[in-house]
């Protein structure tokens, strides 16, 4: 019970997210209207994904330093949970964008398909997808672990440029980009106000803890099935 306090914390934070996130007052903005509440769900998915990918990256480095099979297992499990969060973030983004971007002044579907943020996020997810393809293509266990650890570091190095830096350089409809003030009320950290922060940060922590919990379950299953490999 002492070890599971963070699981309870995750539950409590998510209950808070769902109640306060729906009921508390939010800034009244044009175009966005009530969809600003998606901040607690859509954005929290991406934040959770980034944190989980950071953990995976750390374990990949650990594997290369100590060549322990366990670390490779940890890195894979965290990367796959990160993929799930990323896909959820992308799908929620599709829904959100189709109601706030397409209806906007001059935006059409074709202009949205050129969105650097969407392309960047897709690239980042595909790079991580290739990580699993790469893993699957090896039959030799040590080689698989080593090559995929190196690839994971590369994938992580590509993650932040493709989802944060490039969309900000070229301008995008997505909040936070330099061009966004023309089309959409920006949701950069200058105008995300304290009412949103009060729910947003607990939401990020809650979702991340849930992701970590699910990852630990995956890891424990692998530890049982790969017992013979771990006793080397």
């Amino acid at each position: 019970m002492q070890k599971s306090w963070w699981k309870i914390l995750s539950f409590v934070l998510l209950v808070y997210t769902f109640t306060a996130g729906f009921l508390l007052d939010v800034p009244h903005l044009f175009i966005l209207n009530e969809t600003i509440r998606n901040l607690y769900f859509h954005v929290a998915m991406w934040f959770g994904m980034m944190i989980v990918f950071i953990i995976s990256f750390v374990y990949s480095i650990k594997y290369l330093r100590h060549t322990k099979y366990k670390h490779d297992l940890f890195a894979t499990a965290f990367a796959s949970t990160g993929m799930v969060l990323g896909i959820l973030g992308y799908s929620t983004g599709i829904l959100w964008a189709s109601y706030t971007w397409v209806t906007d002044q001059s935006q059409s579907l074709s202009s949205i398909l050129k969105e650097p943020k969407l392309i960047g996020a897709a690239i980042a997810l595909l790079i991580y997808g290739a990580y699993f393809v790469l893993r699957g293509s090896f039959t030799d266990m040590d080689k698989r672990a080593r090559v995929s650890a190196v690839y994971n570091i590369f994938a992580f190095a590509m993650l932040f440029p493709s989802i944060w830096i490039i969309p900000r350089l070229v301008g995008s409809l997505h909040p936070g980009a330099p061009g966004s003030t023309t089309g959409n009320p920006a949701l950069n950290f200058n105008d995300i106000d304290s009412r949103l922060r009060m729910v947003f940060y607990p939401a990020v922590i809650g979702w991340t803890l849930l992701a970590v919990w699910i990852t630990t379950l995956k890891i424990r299953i692998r530890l049982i099935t790969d017992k013979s490999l771990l006793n080397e």
Partner: protein
Amino acid sequence: MNNFLTRTMLVLLCCLSGMMVFAQNKPAMADIMRSNGKIYVVVGCCLIILTGLFLYVWRVERKIKNIEKGNV
């Protein structure tokens, strides 16, 4: 019966105040929906799903714990 009447009046009043919000050219938020109290239904549904999800994960963990102890 009286209770029902007051409730109806309240809902009507809230609808009217909602219209006033429109008239003031402010973005339309869920004032009407919230005053109706129906947003709580959505919150309830989400909380049920969340609880179910957590119960499921918890059960999976218990099963894994069982296997770890050796009784497959």
